[in-house]
């Protein structure tokens, strides 16, 4: 080849490379745009109003002003309502399940973690009870940040806020803490630092402790205890908030049914006992806590695995224990008493009722006599109010409180629908207005009756009051229902636009693939019949079946099994093909036999998920047989990861180091990975009981080895990038070269991914390697045919299998498409402190490593391993490049098709009961997965298209 020819060849190649990159970048941007637009329409954002409630607003309301000449002993004056308590101690126990608090007799079965907070039972069961256990029902999303926001604003935080959970922003809406600070209540806070992030300026004194290190069970709790007790003897605060986190962390790491959890519960029992003792000792007349209310509450529940975030009953049911230290409790009239009573294990009668977390802000405001937060749509809970504000005339007070409450909610709804772009519908508004008008008319009568009833004997008053309460409750509950159903305003136009853009991107994909087909056909020999093999047809069908299965929530739940079913079917068809051809039988059989192993992994992950999912039935039968197995099983389970690791390292050694075309940097990368593997093995060996746990060893295995491995991984990627920049172009032997490059790239990623995913890592990696190898080997089956077909048709089967395999790997590694499916603990492998970018990167690598990063990076193997000996050497390179492009496009297409169907499904099911529990997380996972795939395809195109 002449010099000038070589130059033009080079520049042409460079141009093509740029062209490919531009195409992939374009698709990335198109997908990003589609998802962005759709998300804007779908993931609801409630308009936050900037108005605040003010003390003086009471003059506009039709209700009574609280008497200014109060007989209350302390300085606090009522503002909207007559204050019922002087001080409130709020103890928040993160992830407090309802069955932690309620006696075990309330449930079908007594579990180990029940009946541990005995002090609460004792208090609640005392006759003439001034303490009560409530079942508090939270609204999803049940993450701490959203719940704190909901508790303090009295509103419904929307899904989009989940994204802000890392790095909580301050609340800009009117909220309880703001109102407390504004109205002269001194607030002391200790514990979870999320509070300080939410309310940076409102606390008089705060003692925040870092909340993000899930592994740390005690720092926050010890800090709380240390500060809590001194404050109980002090006078300089009105509201004290102590947020204990240990239970949430114990749940995340060990699950509910664990000794750590029970220890935590027992510790809390002790703390609460002591708190109650201190409070009671000073609750005499004139004492510090004469008129104090103690609230012990959870912000959300948790599943048996300690996960939360969704809308499953276990997650939304938390509890609230309230105890008034005032010694004049009133018993509630029976009509409002929604409680159910049972005997506990010690034959004490305990009654529990139910409360909405939505009502918390309004109730606490009413008790303290401060204005309700402007955006609160909750109702003052009668039982909690009566418990704390017990007095002779509590019913009259309560009616007035409800009057204020109703007026404030009506005002908010009016302002909201006037200022928001899409307010409530006219029909709903007129219905609500009617209810309000009714209640208001009634109020005029009631007001009269109350005013006339200064004398003691007025028998008509009580029924009138009850009627009034009912009217208000009607209005408020219809508002809550309206808000819950309609709040979440989907912007259908945006959603439609996003969907259209995505569909457009599908056409771009298909068009480009077809175009490349034409280009490829110049190189490929023509001859024979145009054949579409059955395998190719099934590949298309499998992608479509999988995508369309997302239209049903059941198939989304069982997505992993669906994928393994389709993968197994594809494998069986391939095996049949192999039998027809009478070769590659071994590979076909191996492929088919590894699929059930992947499925067992998926089922294992699912059994973890099934515990907290009501919708999912678990097939735990085979896992049970492992669980109650003998020592041999445990031994085998211990040794298998090491074995797999050794095999992986050997494969790498055999494939790359002994390989002739593996030189220089690539060899170095392979050596690095083998070194990293041995480090991983070392870390796990130290993890066992072999050595005595000295701090040095713990440090080494928990911090230094992971960090060294991350460092090696980064270094390897850096080296590969360098080699790409300064590498020489070759025109021959580049197929081998590509294989070496792919191997180096995969090995650079693998050690990090394996250490993040724990001991299952090498097993899954080994299975993936076997399956990938089988797919590639079996691909040559079709080569034997002399028939002519499109290059896209010939690659459709391996690409489809590759993507199905990727899906299986995602579920096999114990993930699922829900936020409780994220393995937060893996973000802290090697690190203890929380750093947003670092931990988010680790979590992303753990979640998407096996299922997105490795498959995309390994995809060129499909093309590189298929030789076209009939094509001339220099043309072969162009062909290779075109086909690689095509394969990447096809892989992207499979992802984009399933994303499209997910979006359609989410659009159809947007009013579904499980939309926040199931469809929205699925959408988010798919969207992130698609964008990551696109991004890595872009990077891969830079790396491989040399």
């Amino acid at each position: 080849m002449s010099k000038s020819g070589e130059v033009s060849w080079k520049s042409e190649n460079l141009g093509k490379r740029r062209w490919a990159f531009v195409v992939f970048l374009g698709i990335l941007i198109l997908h990003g745009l589609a998802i962005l637009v759709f998300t804007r329409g779908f993931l609801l954002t409630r308009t936050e109003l900037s108005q605040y409630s003010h003390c003086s607003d009471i003059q506009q309301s039709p209700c009574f002003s609280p008497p200014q000449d109060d007989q209350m002993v302390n300085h606090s004056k009522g503002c909207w309502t007559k204050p019922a308590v002087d001080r409130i101690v709020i103890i928040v126990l993160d992830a407090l399940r309802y069955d932690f608090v309620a006696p075990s007799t309330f449930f079908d079965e007594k579990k180990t973690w029940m009946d541990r907070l005995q002090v609460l039972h004792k208090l609640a069961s005392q006759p003439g009870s001034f303490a009560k256990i409530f079942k508090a029902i939270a609204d999803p999303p049940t993450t701490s940040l959203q719940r704190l926001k909901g508790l303090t604003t009295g509103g419904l935080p929307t899904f989009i806020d989940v994204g802000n959970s890392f790095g909580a922003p301050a609340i800009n809406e009117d909220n309880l803490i703001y109102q407390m600070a504004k109205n002269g209540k001194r607030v002391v806070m200790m514990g979870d630092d999320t509070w300080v992030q939410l309310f940076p300026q409102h606390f008089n004194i705060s003692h925040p402790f870092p909340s993000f290190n899930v592994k740390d069970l005690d720092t926050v709790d010890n800090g709380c205890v240390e500060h809590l007790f001194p404050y109980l003897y002090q006078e300089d605060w009105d509201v004290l908030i102590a947020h204990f986190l240990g239970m949430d962390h114990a749940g995340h790491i060990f699950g509910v049914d664990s000794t750590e959890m029970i220890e935590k519960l027992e510790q809390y029992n002790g703390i609460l006992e002591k708190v109650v003792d201190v409070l009671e000792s000073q609750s005499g007349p004139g004492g510090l806590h004469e008129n104090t209310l103690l609230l012990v509450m959870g912000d959300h529940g948790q599943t048996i695995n300690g996960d939360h975030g969704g809308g499953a009953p276990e997650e939304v049911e938390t509890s609230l224990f309230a105890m008034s230290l005032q010694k004049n409790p009133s018993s509630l009239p029976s009509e409002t008493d929604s409680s159910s009573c049972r005997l506990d294990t010690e034959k004490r009668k305990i009654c529990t009722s139910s409360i909405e977390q939505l009502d918390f802000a309004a109730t606490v405001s009413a008790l303290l006599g401060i204005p309700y937060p402007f955006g609160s749509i909750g109702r003052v809970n009668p039982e909690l109010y009566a418990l704390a504000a017990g007095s002779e005339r509590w019913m009259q007070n309560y009616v007035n409180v409800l009057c204020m409450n109703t007026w404030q909610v009506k005002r908010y709804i009016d302002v909201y629908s006037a200022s928001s772009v899409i307010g409530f519908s006219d029909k709903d508004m007129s219905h609500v207005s009617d209810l309000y008008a009714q209640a208001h008319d009634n109020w005029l009568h009631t007001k009269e009756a109350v005013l006339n009833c200064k004398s003691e004997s007025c028998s008509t008053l009580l029924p009138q009051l009850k009627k009034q309460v009912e009217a208000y409750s009607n209005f408020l509950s219809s508002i809550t229902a309206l808000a819950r159903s309609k709040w979440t305003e989907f912007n259908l136009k945006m959603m439609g636009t996003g969907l259209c853009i995505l569909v457009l991107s599908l056409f771009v994909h298909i068009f480009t693939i077809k175009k490349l087909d034409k280009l490829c056909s110049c190189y490929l020999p023509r001859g024979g019949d145009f054949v579409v093999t059955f395998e190719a047809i099934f590949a298309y069908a499998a992608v479509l079946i999988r995508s369309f299965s997302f239209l049903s929530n059941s198939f989304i739940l069982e997505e992993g099994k669906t994928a393994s079913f389709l993968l197994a079917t594809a494998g069986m068809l391939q095996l049949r093909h192999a039998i027809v051809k009478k070769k590659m039988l071994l590979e076909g059989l191996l492929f088919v036999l590894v699929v059930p192993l992947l499925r067992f992994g998926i089922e294992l992950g699912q059994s973890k998920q099934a515990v907290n999912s009501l919708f999912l039935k678990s097939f735990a039968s085979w896992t049970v047989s492992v669980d109650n197995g003998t020592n041999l099983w445990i031994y085998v389970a211990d040794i298998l990861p090491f074995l797999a690791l050794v095999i992986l390292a050997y494969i790498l050694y055999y494939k790359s180091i002994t390989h002739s075309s593996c030189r220089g940097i690539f060899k170095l990368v392979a050596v690095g990975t083998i070194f990293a593997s041995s480090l991983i093995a070392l870390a796990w060996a130290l993890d066992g009981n072999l050595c005595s746990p000295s701090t040095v060893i713990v440090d080494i295995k928990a911090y230094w080895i992971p960090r060294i491995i991350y460092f090696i991984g980064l270094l390897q990627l850096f080296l590969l990038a360098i080699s790409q920049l300064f590498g020489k172009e070759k025109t021959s032997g580049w197929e081998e070269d590509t294989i070496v490059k792919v191997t180096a790239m995969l090995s650079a990623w693998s050690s990090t991914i394996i250490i993040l995913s724990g001991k299952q890592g090498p097993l899954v990696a080994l299975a993936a390697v076997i399956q990938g190898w089988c797919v590639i080997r079996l691909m040559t089956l079709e080569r034997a045919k002399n028939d002519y077909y499109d290059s896209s048709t010939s690659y459709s089967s391996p690409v489809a299998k590759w993507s199905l395999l990727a899906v299986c790997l995602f579920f096999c590694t114990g993930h699922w498409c829900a936020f409780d499916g994220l393995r937060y603990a893996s973000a802290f492998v090697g690190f203890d402190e929380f750093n947003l970018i670092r931990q988010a990167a680790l979590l992303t690598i753990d979640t998407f490593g096996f299922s997105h990063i490795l498959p995309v990076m390994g995809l060129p193997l499909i093309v590189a391993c298929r030789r076209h000996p009939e094509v001339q050497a220099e043309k072969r390179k162009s062909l290779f490049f075109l086909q690689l492009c095509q394969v990447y496009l096809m892989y992207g297409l499979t992802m984009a098709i399933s994303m499209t169907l997910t979006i359609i499904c989410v659009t159809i099911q947007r009013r579904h009961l499980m939309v926040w529990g199931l469809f929205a997380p699925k959408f988010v996972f798919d969207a992130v997965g698609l964008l990551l795939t696109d991004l890595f395809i872009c990077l891969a195109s830079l790396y491989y298209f040399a």
Partner: protein
Amino acid sequence: MKMKKNDENGGNTILSVSPLKAITLHLICLLGLALAFWIPNHIYSLDLITHPSQTLRMISVFLAPVLILLYSHLRHDGTQCSYVKAVGRGLLALPAGAVVNALGATILGAPVGFEYFPKTFNWSLMMSLLTFVPAACVFGSSWTDWHRIFARTKASESTDYMISLPAHGAVIGAWFGAWPMPLDWESPWQEWPICVTYGAIAGYLVGLVTSLGCIIFCNRQQHLKEE
């Protein structure tokens, strides 16, 4: 290559099945299937939904003699192989085919575990009857025939249709039958292996009808050619 195969088959001088015989055979098959369903249901009052395992066993017990005796009549190598021998190899194929079917089901996602074992076992016996046993009765251990029937699906004569189509129908039907399993309808028939059994039976019936149609069609073509 195709030509060569045809020659081989042609050289074997197989007794071709007349349409009438095929119809009778298929009718008896249908009758056997219906009886195998009817008897457990009405005499032993066993239901596939309530007692899947026992019912499947019953179906196998009633179906096995009908199919084995019937298909042994069609044995390929009639001159060298006695009727009893054909029946014998049919009986041998029953467990062998069951193992293959059970393995296939497990690979595709059938639940594994002690409580599912009897269900899977009985189901795979039935599947073996619908798929492998007839072929074993007819072809014995002739690998080329098996290969032709199950791997290449290139039917060359009417017995091929009679064996290959119902067997493929049963497998494909079972595959489709598994689809409703994950749905949350909470119906008892969604359990393994009930809907898969229904699917397999439905597929088998479709296969029977199709094979009948094929045989009649081929016969007519042949007649036309001869004329």
